Protein backbone atom coordinates (compact mmCIF):
# COMPACT_ATOMS: atom_id res chain seq x y z
CA UNK A 1 0.00 0.00 0.00
CA UNK A 2 1.44 3.38 -1.03
CA UNK A 3 0.09 5.26 2.00
CA UNK A 4 2.53 5.34 4.88
CA UNK A 5 1.24 5.07 8.42
CA UNK A 6 2.12 8.75 8.97
CA UNK A 7 -0.01 9.74 5.97
CA UNK A 8 -2.91 7.72 7.34
CA UNK A 9 -2.45 9.44 10.69
CA UNK A 10 -2.35 12.83 8.94
CA UNK A 11 -5.72 12.00 7.32
CA UNK A 12 -7.05 11.14 10.78
CA UNK A 13 -5.78 14.50 12.07
CA UNK A 14 -7.65 16.24 9.22
CA UNK A 15 -10.83 14.54 10.43
CA UNK A 16 -10.06 15.59 14.01
CA UNK A 17 -9.71 19.13 12.66
CA UNK A 18 -13.06 18.91 10.85
CA UNK A 19 -14.66 17.57 14.01
CA UNK A 20 -13.10 20.43 16.02
CA UNK A 21 -14.59 22.92 13.55
CA UNK A 22 -17.97 21.22 13.74
CA UNK A 23 -17.70 21.36 17.54
CA UNK A 24 -17.73 25.16 17.34
CA UNK A 25 -21.10 24.84 15.64
CA UNK A 26 -22.35 22.49 18.38
CA UNK A 27 -21.18 24.98 21.04
CA UNK A 28 -22.95 27.83 19.30
CA UNK A 29 -26.14 25.82 19.10
CA UNK A 30 -25.88 25.24 22.86
CA UNK A 31 -25.83 21.38 22.68
CA UNK A 32 -29.41 21.38 21.59
CA UNK A 33 -29.56 18.86 18.77
CA UNK A 34 -28.93 15.25 19.35
CA UNK A 35 -27.18 14.22 16.16
CA UNK A 36 -24.53 11.81 15.04
CA UNK A 37 -22.52 14.09 12.72
CA UNK A 38 -19.68 14.77 15.12
CA UNK A 39 -19.65 11.18 16.30
CA UNK A 40 -19.32 10.00 12.69
CA UNK A 41 -16.51 12.48 11.98
CA UNK A 42 -14.63 11.17 14.98
CA UNK A 43 -15.43 7.59 13.96
CA UNK A 44 -13.93 8.30 10.50
CA UNK A 45 -10.86 9.81 12.16
CA UNK A 46 -10.67 6.75 14.41
CA UNK A 47 -10.77 4.42 11.38
CA UNK A 48 -7.75 6.13 9.77
CA UNK A 49 -6.04 6.44 13.12
CA UNK A 50 -6.50 2.71 13.77
CA UNK A 51 -5.12 1.86 10.32
CA UNK A 52 -2.09 4.05 11.03
CA UNK A 53 -1.45 2.43 14.42
CA UNK A 54 -1.86 -1.10 13.07
CA UNK A 55 0.26 -0.45 10.00
CA UNK A 56 3.09 0.82 12.17
CA UNK A 57 2.58 -2.10 14.55
CA UNK A 58 2.67 -4.74 11.81
CA UNK A 59 5.68 -3.20 10.12
CA UNK A 60 7.61 -3.38 13.41
CA UNK A 61 5.95 -6.62 14.59
CA UNK A 62 5.22 -5.14 18.03
CA UNK A 63 2.96 -2.73 19.83
CA UNK A 64 3.91 0.66 18.31
CA UNK A 65 4.54 2.70 21.43
CA UNK A 66 8.28 3.11 21.53
CA UNK A 67 8.98 6.66 20.52
CA UNK A 68 7.26 9.95 21.25
CA UNK A 69 5.24 9.97 18.02
CA UNK A 70 3.97 6.46 18.65
CA UNK A 71 3.23 7.15 22.30
CA UNK A 72 1.38 10.37 21.54
CA UNK A 73 -0.75 8.84 18.80
CA UNK A 74 -1.48 5.89 21.08
CA UNK A 75 -2.76 8.16 23.86
CA UNK A 76 -5.00 9.98 21.38
CA UNK A 77 -6.17 6.64 20.00
CA UNK A 78 -7.24 5.39 23.44
CA UNK A 79 -9.13 8.65 24.05
CA UNK A 80 -11.10 8.29 20.79
CA UNK A 81 -11.75 4.60 21.33
CA UNK A 82 -13.14 5.29 24.81
CA UNK A 83 -15.19 8.22 23.51
CA UNK A 84 -16.73 6.13 20.72
CA UNK A 85 -17.78 3.55 23.30
CA UNK A 86 -19.20 6.12 25.74
CA UNK A 87 -20.75 8.22 22.95
CA UNK A 88 -23.25 5.48 22.12
CA UNK A 89 -25.24 6.94 25.00
CA UNK A 90 -26.85 9.98 23.40
CA UNK A 91 -26.20 12.64 26.01
CA UNK A 92 -22.55 11.76 26.50
CA UNK A 93 -22.07 11.95 22.73
CA UNK A 94 -21.53 15.68 23.22
CA UNK A 95 -18.21 14.82 24.88
CA UNK A 96 -16.93 14.67 21.30
CA UNK A 97 -17.28 18.44 20.99
CA UNK A 98 -14.84 18.83 23.88
CA UNK A 99 -12.58 15.96 22.84
CA UNK A 100 -12.12 17.00 19.19
CA UNK A 101 -10.04 20.17 19.78
CA UNK A 102 -7.80 18.31 22.26
CA UNK A 103 -7.34 15.41 19.84
CA UNK A 104 -6.61 17.78 16.99
CA UNK A 105 -3.98 19.55 19.11
CA UNK A 106 -2.35 16.27 20.18
CA UNK A 107 -2.45 15.06 16.55
CA UNK A 108 -0.74 18.13 15.12
CA UNK A 109 1.88 17.91 17.87
CA UNK A 110 2.52 14.23 17.17
CA UNK A 111 3.11 14.93 13.49
CA UNK A 112 6.20 17.03 14.23
CA UNK A 113 9.00 15.12 12.44
CA UNK A 114 11.50 15.28 15.33
CA UNK A 115 9.22 13.11 17.48
CA UNK A 116 9.48 10.19 15.08
CA UNK A 117 13.14 9.41 14.33
CA UNK A 118 13.69 6.37 12.09
CA UNK A 119 14.06 3.17 14.09
CA UNK A 120 16.74 1.62 11.88
CA UNK A 121 16.91 -2.14 11.60
CA UNK A 122 16.55 -2.77 15.28
CA UNK A 123 13.93 -0.99 17.36
CA UNK A 124 15.19 0.89 20.39
CA UNK A 125 13.09 -1.18 22.77
CA UNK A 126 11.69 -4.65 22.46
CA UNK A 127 10.06 -7.21 24.70
CA UNK A 128 6.61 -8.12 25.93
CA UNK A 129 6.96 -6.63 29.42
CA UNK A 130 8.11 -3.32 27.97
CA UNK A 131 5.12 -3.22 25.65
CA UNK A 132 2.79 -4.07 28.53
CA UNK A 133 4.37 -1.39 30.75
CA UNK A 134 4.10 1.26 28.03
CA UNK A 135 0.59 0.25 26.94
CA UNK A 136 -0.80 0.30 30.50
CA UNK A 137 0.73 3.68 31.28
CA UNK A 138 -0.43 5.21 28.01
CA UNK A 139 -3.93 3.78 28.46
CA UNK A 140 -4.03 5.45 31.85
CA UNK A 141 -3.13 8.79 30.22
CA UNK A 142 -5.96 8.15 27.75
CA UNK A 143 -8.39 7.71 30.65
CA UNK A 144 -7.07 10.87 32.36
CA UNK A 145 -7.44 12.67 29.01
CA UNK A 146 -11.06 11.61 28.63
CA UNK A 147 -11.71 12.57 32.27
CA UNK A 148 -10.44 16.05 31.51
CA UNK A 149 -12.75 16.20 28.46
CA UNK A 150 -15.68 15.29 30.74
CA UNK A 151 -14.40 17.92 33.19
CA UNK A 152 -14.54 20.58 30.46
CA UNK A 153 -18.11 19.58 29.73
CA UNK A 154 -18.91 19.74 33.45
CA UNK A 155 -17.40 23.21 33.87
CA UNK A 156 -19.27 24.51 30.84
CA UNK A 157 -22.64 23.16 32.02
CA UNK A 158 -22.02 24.20 35.64
CA UNK A 159 -21.43 27.76 34.48
CA UNK A 160 -24.57 27.69 32.33
CA UNK A 161 -26.71 26.31 35.16
CA UNK A 162 -25.69 29.27 37.28
CA UNK A 163 -25.35 32.17 34.90
CA UNK A 164 -26.85 31.25 31.52
CA UNK A 165 -29.91 29.36 32.61
CA UNK A 166 -31.61 29.48 29.25
CA UNK A 167 -28.67 27.77 27.61
CA UNK A 168 -28.57 25.15 30.35
CA UNK A 169 -32.29 24.44 29.98
CA UNK A 170 -32.14 24.03 26.22
CA UNK A 171 -29.01 21.88 26.07
CA UNK A 172 -29.09 18.10 26.02
CA UNK A 173 -26.02 17.70 28.20
CA UNK A 174 -26.33 15.01 30.92
CA UNK A 175 -27.02 16.01 34.53
CA UNK A 176 -23.84 17.47 36.02
CA UNK A 177 -23.90 15.03 38.91
CA UNK A 178 -23.63 12.20 36.39
CA UNK A 179 -20.80 14.02 34.59
CA UNK A 180 -19.00 14.29 37.90
CA UNK A 181 -19.32 10.57 38.49
CA UNK A 182 -18.06 9.92 34.92
CA UNK A 183 -14.97 12.02 35.73
CA UNK A 184 -14.48 10.13 39.00
CA UNK A 185 -14.75 6.72 37.34
CA UNK A 186 -12.39 7.62 34.51
CA UNK A 187 -9.84 8.93 37.01
CA UNK A 188 -10.17 5.80 39.15
CA UNK A 189 -9.82 3.57 36.06
CA UNK A 190 -6.82 5.58 34.86
CA UNK A 191 -5.24 5.37 38.30
CA UNK A 192 -5.56 1.58 38.38
CA UNK A 193 -3.98 1.33 34.91
CA UNK A 194 -1.18 3.71 35.88
CA UNK A 195 -0.48 1.74 39.06
CA UNK A 196 -0.31 -1.55 37.15
CA UNK A 197 1.86 0.02 34.44
CA UNK A 198 4.32 1.43 36.97
CA UNK A 199 4.42 -1.87 38.89
CA UNK A 200 5.30 -3.69 35.68
CA UNK A 201 7.98 -1.06 35.03
CA UNK A 202 9.43 -1.38 38.52
CA UNK A 203 9.38 -5.15 39.01
CA UNK A 204 9.33 -6.87 35.63
CA UNK A 205 11.88 -4.73 33.82
CA UNK A 206 15.61 -4.60 34.32
CA UNK A 207 17.38 -1.28 34.71
CA UNK A 208 20.15 -0.52 32.25
CA UNK A 209 23.57 -0.58 33.94
CA UNK A 210 24.45 2.67 35.66
CA UNK A 211 20.88 3.93 35.82
CA UNK A 212 18.87 4.40 39.00
CA UNK A 213 15.20 5.10 39.60
CA UNK A 214 15.78 7.74 42.21
CA UNK A 215 17.59 10.19 39.94
CA UNK A 216 15.72 9.62 36.68
CA UNK A 217 13.47 12.61 35.87
CA UNK A 218 10.86 10.50 34.13
CA UNK A 219 10.59 7.99 36.97
CA UNK A 220 10.32 10.76 39.54
CA UNK A 221 7.78 12.54 37.36
CA UNK A 222 5.69 9.36 36.99
CA UNK A 223 5.74 8.92 40.75
CA UNK A 224 4.60 12.53 41.14
CA UNK A 225 1.75 11.98 38.66
CA UNK A 226 0.74 8.83 40.54
CA UNK A 227 0.73 10.66 43.88
CA UNK A 228 -1.19 13.57 42.34
CA UNK A 229 -4.02 11.34 41.08
CA UNK A 230 -4.02 9.34 44.32
CA UNK A 231 -4.47 12.57 46.27
CA UNK A 232 -7.22 13.71 43.96
CA UNK A 233 -9.14 10.47 44.42
CA UNK A 234 -8.62 10.41 48.18
CA UNK A 235 -9.77 14.02 48.45
CA UNK A 236 -12.90 13.24 46.45
CA UNK A 237 -13.99 10.23 48.39
CA UNK A 238 -12.64 11.16 51.78
CA UNK A 239 -12.92 14.93 51.99
CA UNK A 240 -15.84 15.70 49.64
CA UNK A 241 -13.67 17.50 47.12
CA UNK A 242 -16.53 17.84 44.68
CA UNK A 243 -18.13 19.72 41.85
CA UNK A 244 -16.30 22.50 40.10
CA UNK A 245 -13.11 22.11 42.13
CA UNK A 246 -12.94 18.42 41.36
CA UNK A 247 -13.49 19.06 37.63
CA UNK A 248 -10.83 21.78 37.67
CA UNK A 249 -8.39 19.41 39.39
CA UNK A 250 -9.04 16.68 36.81
CA UNK A 251 -8.46 19.20 34.04
CA UNK A 252 -5.36 20.67 35.69
CA UNK A 253 -3.94 17.21 36.34
CA UNK A 254 -4.14 16.24 32.70
CA UNK A 255 -2.79 19.61 31.58
CA UNK A 256 0.21 18.95 33.81
CA UNK A 257 0.69 15.48 32.28
CA UNK A 258 0.34 16.87 28.77
CA UNK A 259 2.78 19.73 29.30
CA UNK A 260 5.52 17.82 31.12
CA UNK A 261 5.28 14.35 29.57
CA UNK A 262 7.55 15.08 26.60
CA UNK A 263 10.11 17.11 28.49
CA UNK A 264 10.75 14.59 31.25
CA UNK A 265 10.78 11.83 28.67
CA UNK A 266 13.57 13.49 26.75
CA UNK A 267 15.59 14.05 29.93
CA UNK A 268 15.32 10.45 31.09
CA UNK A 269 18.25 8.16 30.36
CA UNK A 270 16.23 5.05 31.19
CA UNK A 271 13.54 5.95 28.68
CA UNK A 272 15.87 7.53 26.19
CA UNK A 273 18.84 5.25 25.69
CA UNK A 274 20.11 7.27 22.73
CA UNK A 275 20.99 10.08 25.16
CA UNK A 276 24.03 8.36 26.56
CA UNK A 277 24.64 5.35 24.35
CA UNK A 278 23.62 4.00 20.94
CA UNK A 279 20.72 1.56 21.24
CA UNK A 280 22.17 -0.88 18.71
CA UNK A 281 25.34 -1.38 20.75
CA UNK A 282 23.40 -2.59 23.81
CA UNK A 283 23.42 -6.38 23.79
CA UNK A 284 20.24 -6.79 25.82
CA UNK A 285 17.37 -4.33 25.41
CA UNK A 286 17.22 -1.61 28.04
CA UNK A 287 14.25 -1.51 30.30
CA UNK A 288 11.23 0.65 30.14
CA UNK A 289 9.68 3.37 28.16
CA UNK A 290 7.03 5.88 29.07
Amino acid sequence: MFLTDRTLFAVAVVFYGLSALYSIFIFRRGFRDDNWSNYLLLAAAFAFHTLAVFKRGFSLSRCPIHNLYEATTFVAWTIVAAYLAIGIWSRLRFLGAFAAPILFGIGVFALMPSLDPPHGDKPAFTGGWISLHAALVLLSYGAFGLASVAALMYLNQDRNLKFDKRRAALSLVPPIQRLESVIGRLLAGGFVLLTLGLLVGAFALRLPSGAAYWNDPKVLWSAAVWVMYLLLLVLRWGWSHRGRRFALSALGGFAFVLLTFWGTNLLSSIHNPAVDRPAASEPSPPAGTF
Partner: protein
Amino acid sequence: MSILVLGLNHRTAPVALRERFAFAEARVPTALQALRDSGAADEAVILSTCNRVEIYAATTREPRQACGVLIDFLIGAQNYRDPLAGEIYQLAEPQSVEHLFKVACGLDSMVLGETEILGQLKSAYDVALQHHHTGPRLNKAFQRAFNVAKQIRTETRIQRGSASVPSVAVEMAERIFSELDHRQVMVIGAGEMSEKAARALLSRGARSVLVSNRSYDRAHALAEELGGRAVHFEEWAREFAQIDIVISSTSAPHYVLDRARLEPLMRLRRNRPLLLIDIAVPRDIDPEVNLLENVYLYNIDDLQALADDSLKQRKEEIARCEALIRERARELLETRRPEGMPELPQPALKRD
Protein backbone atom coordinates in the same frame (compact mmCIF):
# COMPACT_ATOMS: atom_id res chain seq x y z
CA MET B 1 -68.13 5.39 6.23
CA SER B 2 -66.68 8.70 7.31
CA ILE B 3 -65.33 10.06 10.57
CA LEU B 4 -66.98 13.05 12.22
CA VAL B 5 -66.01 15.05 15.28
CA LEU B 6 -68.40 17.12 17.26
CA GLY B 7 -67.95 18.89 20.56
CA LEU B 8 -66.82 21.92 22.49
CA ASN B 9 -63.50 22.85 24.06
CA HIS B 10 -61.65 25.56 26.01
CA ARG B 11 -61.47 27.73 22.92
CA THR B 12 -65.15 27.71 22.03
CA ALA B 13 -66.86 27.46 25.39
CA PRO B 14 -66.29 28.77 28.93
CA VAL B 15 -65.88 26.33 31.77
CA ALA B 16 -69.45 26.96 32.97
CA LEU B 17 -70.74 25.55 29.70
CA ARG B 18 -68.14 22.79 29.37
CA GLU B 19 -69.03 21.39 32.77
CA ARG B 20 -72.69 21.14 31.81
CA PHE B 21 -71.80 19.01 28.81
CA ALA B 22 -69.19 16.86 30.57
CA PHE B 23 -69.82 13.10 30.85
CA ALA B 24 -69.03 11.51 34.17
CA GLU B 25 -66.63 8.62 33.63
CA ALA B 26 -69.12 6.00 34.78
CA ARG B 27 -71.79 7.30 32.42
CA VAL B 28 -69.70 7.06 29.25
CA PRO B 29 -70.49 3.42 28.32
CA THR B 30 -74.24 4.02 28.65
CA ALA B 31 -73.97 7.22 26.64
CA LEU B 32 -72.05 5.40 23.90
CA GLN B 33 -74.72 2.72 23.79
CA ALA B 34 -77.46 5.33 23.55
CA LEU B 35 -75.55 7.15 20.86
CA ARG B 36 -75.24 4.09 18.68
CA ASP B 37 -78.85 3.13 19.37
CA SER B 38 -79.95 6.51 18.11
CA GLY B 39 -78.48 5.57 14.74
CA ALA B 40 -76.30 8.68 14.64
CA ALA B 41 -73.09 6.65 14.61
CA ASP B 42 -71.91 3.16 13.78
CA GLU B 43 -68.76 3.55 15.87
CA ALA B 44 -68.16 6.12 18.60
CA VAL B 45 -65.71 7.36 21.24
CA ILE B 46 -66.56 9.99 23.84
CA LEU B 47 -63.73 12.13 25.19
CA SER B 48 -64.66 14.17 28.26
CA THR B 49 -61.96 16.13 30.10
CA CYS B 50 -61.99 19.44 31.92
CA ASN B 51 -61.03 21.23 28.73
CA ARG B 52 -63.13 19.41 26.15
CA VAL B 53 -66.16 17.25 25.51
CA GLU B 54 -65.99 15.57 22.12
CA ILE B 55 -67.73 12.78 20.26
CA TYR B 56 -65.72 10.93 17.62
CA ALA B 57 -68.08 9.04 15.37
CA ALA B 58 -67.85 6.89 12.28
CA THR B 59 -71.04 6.80 10.27
CA THR B 60 -72.38 5.73 6.89
CA ARG B 61 -74.84 8.59 6.93
CA GLU B 62 -74.40 11.77 4.98
CA PRO B 63 -72.12 13.95 7.21
CA ARG B 64 -74.38 17.00 7.50
CA GLN B 65 -77.37 14.89 8.46
CA ALA B 66 -75.31 12.80 10.87
CA CYS B 67 -73.98 15.92 12.57
CA GLY B 68 -77.51 17.16 13.17
CA VAL B 69 -78.43 13.92 14.89
CA LEU B 70 -75.20 13.96 16.92
CA ILE B 71 -75.85 17.50 18.17
CA ASP B 72 -79.37 16.53 19.15
CA PHE B 73 -77.94 13.57 21.01
CA LEU B 74 -75.34 15.67 22.86
CA ILE B 75 -77.87 18.29 23.89
CA GLY B 76 -80.46 15.69 24.79
CA ALA B 77 -78.01 13.55 26.77
CA GLN B 78 -77.15 16.46 29.04
CA ASN B 79 -80.66 17.82 29.12
CA TYR B 80 -79.39 21.22 28.01
CA ARG B 81 -82.12 23.73 27.19
CA ASP B 82 -80.40 27.13 26.92
CA PRO B 83 -79.61 28.69 23.58
CA LEU B 84 -76.22 27.97 21.97
CA ALA B 85 -74.24 30.38 19.82
CA GLY B 86 -71.74 28.32 17.89
CA GLU B 87 -69.96 26.81 20.88
CA ILE B 88 -70.30 23.34 19.41
CA TYR B 89 -68.09 22.63 16.43
CA GLN B 90 -68.66 19.94 13.83
CA LEU B 91 -65.89 18.60 11.64
CA ALA B 92 -66.05 16.21 8.70
CA GLU B 93 -63.17 14.51 6.91
CA PRO B 94 -60.39 15.39 6.47
CA GLN B 95 -60.59 18.06 9.25
CA SER B 96 -62.08 15.57 11.70
CA VAL B 97 -59.10 13.21 11.40
CA GLU B 98 -56.65 16.10 11.55
CA HIS B 99 -58.42 17.33 14.68
CA LEU B 100 -58.09 13.91 16.31
CA PHE B 101 -54.36 13.89 15.55
CA LYS B 102 -53.96 17.44 16.89
CA VAL B 103 -55.72 16.56 20.11
CA ALA B 104 -53.50 13.50 20.54
CA CYS B 105 -50.37 15.64 20.06
CA GLY B 106 -51.48 18.33 22.52
CA LEU B 107 -51.72 20.91 19.71
CA ASP B 108 -55.30 21.69 20.65
CA SER B 109 -54.56 21.86 24.39
CA MET B 110 -54.63 24.88 26.65
CA VAL B 111 -50.93 24.34 27.46
CA LEU B 112 -49.53 23.79 23.99
CA GLY B 113 -47.84 20.44 23.54
CA GLU B 114 -48.87 18.98 26.91
CA THR B 115 -48.94 15.21 27.10
CA GLU B 116 -51.67 14.54 29.65
CA ILE B 117 -54.32 14.68 26.94
CA LEU B 118 -52.76 11.72 25.12
CA GLY B 119 -53.34 9.56 28.20
CA GLN B 120 -56.92 10.83 28.49
CA LEU B 121 -57.54 10.10 24.81
CA LYS B 122 -56.12 6.60 25.21
CA SER B 123 -58.40 5.82 28.13
CA ALA B 124 -61.46 7.26 26.35
CA TYR B 125 -60.67 5.00 23.41
CA ASP B 126 -60.10 1.99 25.72
CA VAL B 127 -63.52 2.45 27.32
CA ALA B 128 -65.20 2.50 23.88
CA LEU B 129 -63.13 -0.48 22.72
CA GLN B 130 -63.89 -2.57 25.80
CA HIS B 131 -67.60 -1.99 25.38
CA HIS B 132 -67.42 -2.84 21.68
CA HIS B 133 -68.41 0.58 20.43
CA THR B 134 -65.51 1.01 18.04
CA GLY B 135 -64.90 -0.77 14.74
CA PRO B 136 -62.23 -0.92 12.07
CA ARG B 137 -62.67 2.71 11.09
CA LEU B 138 -62.16 4.35 14.47
CA ASN B 139 -59.71 1.68 15.63
CA LYS B 140 -57.44 2.50 12.75
CA ALA B 141 -57.85 6.25 13.16
CA PHE B 142 -57.10 6.16 16.90
CA GLN B 143 -54.14 3.81 16.53
CA ARG B 144 -52.80 6.16 13.89
CA ALA B 145 -53.39 9.15 16.16
CA PHE B 146 -51.30 7.55 18.95
CA ASN B 147 -48.64 6.77 16.40
CA VAL B 148 -48.59 10.36 15.09
CA ALA B 149 -48.33 11.68 18.66
CA LYS B 150 -45.22 9.56 19.14
CA GLN B 151 -43.77 10.76 15.86
CA ILE B 152 -44.43 14.40 16.76
CA ARG B 153 -42.81 13.92 20.13
CA THR B 154 -39.61 12.49 18.68
CA GLU B 155 -39.31 14.50 15.48
CA THR B 156 -40.34 17.99 16.55
CA ARG B 157 -39.67 20.22 19.53
CA ILE B 158 -43.32 20.75 20.40
CA GLN B 159 -42.89 18.88 23.67
CA ARG B 160 -39.37 20.07 24.41
CA GLY B 161 -38.79 22.08 27.53
CA SER B 162 -41.39 22.82 30.17
CA ALA B 163 -44.08 25.40 29.85
CA SER B 164 -45.06 25.97 33.49
CA VAL B 165 -43.10 27.13 36.55
CA PRO B 166 -43.39 23.86 38.54
CA SER B 167 -42.39 21.72 35.57
CA VAL B 168 -39.42 24.00 34.79
CA ALA B 169 -38.31 23.50 38.39
CA VAL B 170 -38.42 19.74 37.87
CA GLU B 171 -36.57 20.04 34.59
CA MET B 172 -33.74 22.02 36.15
CA ALA B 173 -33.55 19.46 38.97
CA GLU B 174 -33.11 16.78 36.31
CA ARG B 175 -30.22 18.73 34.81
CA ILE B 176 -28.40 18.80 38.11
CA PHE B 177 -29.12 15.44 39.77
CA SER B 178 -28.39 12.09 38.14
CA GLU B 179 -31.77 10.85 39.23
CA LEU B 180 -34.52 12.31 41.41
CA ASP B 181 -35.27 9.02 43.16
CA HIS B 182 -33.41 9.66 46.39
CA ARG B 183 -33.69 13.44 46.53
CA GLN B 184 -35.03 15.01 49.65
CA VAL B 185 -37.14 18.11 49.08
CA MET B 186 -37.80 20.86 51.62
CA VAL B 187 -40.62 23.35 51.28
CA ILE B 188 -40.14 26.55 53.29
CA GLY B 189 -43.36 28.55 53.44
CA ALA B 190 -46.43 26.61 52.36
CA GLY B 191 -47.94 28.34 49.35
CA GLU B 192 -49.87 27.10 46.33
CA MET B 193 -46.99 27.33 43.88
CA SER B 194 -44.51 25.63 46.21
CA GLU B 195 -47.02 22.87 46.78
CA LYS B 196 -47.36 22.38 43.01
CA ALA B 197 -43.60 22.31 42.55
CA ALA B 198 -43.22 19.81 45.40
CA ARG B 199 -45.93 17.61 43.92
CA ALA B 200 -44.24 17.75 40.50
CA LEU B 201 -40.93 16.66 42.07
CA LEU B 202 -42.63 13.86 43.99
CA SER B 203 -44.35 12.64 40.83
CA ARG B 204 -40.92 12.32 39.22
CA GLY B 205 -39.69 10.16 42.06
CA ALA B 206 -38.30 12.53 44.73
CA ARG B 207 -38.01 10.63 48.03
CA SER B 208 -40.01 12.78 50.39
CA VAL B 209 -40.86 16.31 51.43
CA LEU B 210 -40.16 18.24 54.60
CA VAL B 211 -42.44 21.23 55.13
CA SER B 212 -41.55 24.20 57.26
CA ASN B 213 -43.85 27.14 57.81
CA ARG B 214 -44.23 29.95 60.34
CA SER B 215 -47.58 28.45 61.26
CA TYR B 216 -46.75 24.90 62.28
CA ASP B 217 -50.33 23.77 61.78
CA ARG B 218 -50.27 24.84 58.16
CA ALA B 219 -46.93 23.05 57.69
CA HIS B 220 -48.37 19.96 59.30
CA ALA B 221 -51.45 20.02 57.07
CA LEU B 222 -49.43 20.36 53.88
CA ALA B 223 -46.89 17.76 54.98
CA GLU B 224 -49.69 15.33 55.61
CA GLU B 225 -51.18 16.03 52.20
CA LEU B 226 -47.84 15.44 50.51
CA GLY B 227 -47.00 12.40 52.61
CA GLY B 228 -44.05 14.21 54.19
CA ARG B 229 -43.01 15.57 57.58
CA ALA B 230 -43.50 19.01 59.15
CA VAL B 231 -40.56 20.89 60.65
CA HIS B 232 -40.73 23.86 63.03
CA PHE B 233 -39.78 27.06 61.24
CA GLU B 234 -36.94 27.80 63.63
CA GLU B 235 -35.45 24.38 62.99
CA TRP B 236 -35.42 24.04 59.23
CA ALA B 237 -31.67 24.69 58.98
CA ARG B 238 -30.99 21.65 61.19
CA GLU B 239 -32.42 19.38 58.53
CA PHE B 240 -30.17 20.81 55.87
CA ALA B 241 -27.61 18.00 55.85
CA GLN B 242 -30.05 15.69 54.11
CA ILE B 243 -31.74 18.21 51.79
CA ASP B 244 -31.10 18.32 48.03
CA ILE B 245 -33.82 20.67 46.79
CA VAL B 246 -35.33 23.65 48.61
CA ILE B 247 -38.51 25.37 47.46
CA SER B 248 -38.93 28.64 49.27
CA SER B 249 -42.02 30.83 49.24
CA THR B 250 -42.35 32.56 52.59
CA SER B 251 -43.87 36.01 52.95
CA ALA B 252 -40.84 37.25 54.90
CA PRO B 253 -39.84 40.82 54.01
CA HIS B 254 -36.12 39.93 54.18
CA TYR B 255 -33.86 37.10 53.05
CA VAL B 256 -34.48 33.84 54.89
CA LEU B 257 -31.28 32.33 53.52
CA ASP B 258 -28.11 34.22 52.72
CA ARG B 259 -24.51 33.41 51.94
CA ALA B 260 -23.27 33.63 55.52
CA ARG B 261 -25.93 31.20 56.67
CA LEU B 262 -25.60 28.77 53.75
CA GLU B 263 -21.82 28.44 53.65
CA PRO B 264 -21.48 26.36 56.85
CA LEU B 265 -24.58 24.37 55.88
CA MET B 266 -22.91 23.38 52.58
CA ARG B 267 -19.99 21.90 54.53
CA LEU B 268 -22.51 19.85 56.51
CA ARG B 269 -23.87 18.58 53.22
CA ARG B 270 -20.36 17.56 52.12
CA ASN B 271 -20.69 19.87 49.10
CA ARG B 272 -23.36 17.79 47.39
CA PRO B 273 -25.20 19.87 44.77
CA LEU B 274 -28.07 21.95 46.15
CA LEU B 275 -30.93 23.31 44.07
CA LEU B 276 -32.67 26.36 45.53
CA ILE B 277 -36.00 27.40 44.05
CA ASP B 278 -37.09 30.80 45.31
CA ILE B 279 -40.62 31.57 44.20
CA ALA B 280 -41.28 34.22 46.84
CA VAL B 281 -41.75 37.92 46.12
CA PRO B 282 -39.96 39.65 47.81
CA ARG B 283 -37.25 37.05 47.40
CA ASP B 284 -36.37 34.67 50.24
CA ILE B 285 -32.88 33.78 49.14
CA ASP B 286 -30.00 36.19 48.66
CA PRO B 287 -28.92 36.00 44.97
CA GLU B 288 -25.31 36.00 46.21
CA VAL B 289 -25.62 32.33 47.21
CA ASN B 290 -25.60 31.42 43.53
CA LEU B 291 -21.89 32.27 43.59
CA LEU B 292 -21.23 29.46 46.08
CA GLU B 293 -19.93 26.27 44.53
CA ASN B 294 -22.45 23.46 43.99
CA VAL B 295 -25.36 25.80 44.71
CA TYR B 296 -27.85 26.50 41.93
CA LEU B 297 -30.38 29.22 42.60
CA TYR B 298 -33.49 29.86 40.48
CA ASN B 299 -35.94 32.62 41.34
CA ILE B 300 -39.46 33.10 40.02
CA ASP B 301 -38.27 35.30 37.13
CA ASP B 302 -35.72 32.71 36.01
CA LEU B 303 -38.32 29.98 36.03
CA GLN B 304 -40.97 32.09 34.33
CA ALA B 305 -38.51 33.16 31.62
CA LEU B 306 -37.59 29.52 30.95
CA ALA B 307 -41.27 28.54 30.78
CA ASP B 308 -41.98 31.40 28.36
CA ASP B 309 -39.02 30.35 26.26
CA SER B 310 -40.29 26.82 25.91
CA LEU B 311 -43.71 28.07 25.02
CA LYS B 312 -42.26 30.35 22.35
CA GLN B 313 -40.24 27.48 20.95
CA ARG B 314 -43.31 25.28 20.95
CA LYS B 315 -45.27 27.90 19.04
CA GLU B 316 -42.55 28.03 16.42
CA GLU B 317 -43.02 24.31 15.88
CA ILE B 318 -46.77 24.45 15.28
CA ALA B 319 -46.50 24.87 11.50
CA ARG B 320 -44.19 21.86 11.22
CA CYS B 321 -46.50 19.72 13.33
CA GLU B 322 -49.55 20.75 11.37
CA ALA B 323 -47.91 19.90 8.05
CA LEU B 324 -46.94 16.50 9.41
CA ILE B 325 -50.45 15.92 10.72
CA ARG B 326 -52.07 16.88 7.40
CA GLU B 327 -49.78 14.47 5.61
CA ARG B 328 -50.51 11.58 8.00
CA ALA B 329 -54.27 12.29 7.87
CA ARG B 330 -54.17 12.26 4.06
CA GLU B 331 -52.34 8.91 4.14
CA LEU B 332 -54.94 7.45 6.45
CA LEU B 333 -57.86 8.65 4.33
CA GLU B 334 -56.26 7.46 1.10
CA THR B 335 -55.80 3.92 2.40
CA ARG B 336 -59.51 3.76 3.18
CA ARG B 337 -61.58 1.10 1.46
CA PRO B 338 -62.60 2.50 -1.94
CA GLU B 339 -66.22 3.60 -2.27
CA GLY B 340 -68.57 0.98 -3.68
CA MET B 341 -66.82 -2.02 -2.18
CA PRO B 342 -69.07 -4.18 -0.05
CA GLU B 343 -68.91 -3.35 3.60
CA LEU B 344 -67.13 -5.90 5.73
CA PRO B 345 -69.03 -7.52 8.55
CA GLN B 346 -68.12 -6.11 11.97
CA PRO B 347 -68.63 -8.87 14.50
CA ALA B 348 -66.96 -6.89 17.28
CA LEU B 349 -69.70 -4.30 17.28
CA LYS B 350 -72.47 -4.74 19.76
CA ARG B 351 -75.75 -4.01 18.02
CA ASP B 352 -78.27 -4.58 20.77
